[in-house]
């Protein structure tokens, strides 16, 4: 019995599916089609690398600390809320 094969995705379709692909929400069959396209398309491969590089660069902007003065001010506000609530 022959299997019906889905047609090859074109570049525009790959670009449109890319976020779903990167977010891991594409059904497996669609994921396979994106990966099959990427194996043979250097232009889309370059595009995907650019998007991944962009996401990676954004991740390095992450700020983790809360300045002490800001924290103290928020704690004061919390105490005010708590005493008003009591």
């Amino acid at each position, binding site marked *: 019995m022959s299997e019906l094969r889905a047609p090859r995705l074109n*570049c525009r*379709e790959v670009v449109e599916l890319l976020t779903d692909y990167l*977010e891991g929400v594409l059904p497996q069959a669609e994921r396979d089609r994106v990966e099959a396209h990427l194996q043979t398309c250097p232009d889309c491969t370059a595009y995907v*690398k650019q998007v991944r590089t962009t996401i990676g*660069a*954004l*991740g390095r902007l992450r700020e983790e600390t809360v300045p002490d003065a800001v924290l103290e001010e928020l704690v004061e506000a919390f105490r005010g*809320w708590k005493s008003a609530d009591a």
Partner: protein
Amino acid sequence: MPTLARIRMSTDALADEVLLDACRAGDEGAFVALVRRHHPALVALARCWPGGAYEAQRDVAGAWMALLRHADRGGGSRDPALPARCVRAAAGREVIRAATRRTNVALQAPDVPLVEPDRFFAHDHELWADEWADPPRPWGRMAARRMDQADMPRLLMRRTRELGVARAAALTLRDVHGWALAECAVALDLSEPQMRSLLRAAREGLRAALEAEIDSR
């Protein structure tokens, strides 16, 4: 009285919901822990709207208090408007309310094409329908060096904000601070498909801006 450092050690493993319940009961340490955990992302979110660091801090301070007040409504039961196990998303929603009120700039997803249409051959092209006509050039070593330069973080932040509040907020929460897509959707009051669509436009907008920057060198 416990020091702030000890509070950090003893609350690191507690879930946001547990901490919010403790805040509701008046536990200052729980509040400090929640603030330490999520305040930077919330300030970054507020900074997607016009204004400076001071205004953003005000927005987030107001959002924390709004979150505590909302937790109070309903006589101790969980406010149905607060999504379960999604404290930071609820806080994000409060930040967006505050920033929108302050600036009168609403969070609206722009209706823009994903990639400039003329970078692809037309749908009805005989040989190359919907394939790249003007493909991206691979980013090699020069691009990598450019990405590592000292001014890049500032440039990235500027380019992100230039995309408008909706796209900037999407990138800030998902790609800078790593919130789950579902949390971003709750914070921005979007469905998950809408959130993915916004994120797609946002990533493409920033990629295109970086491509222009790198190709100009």
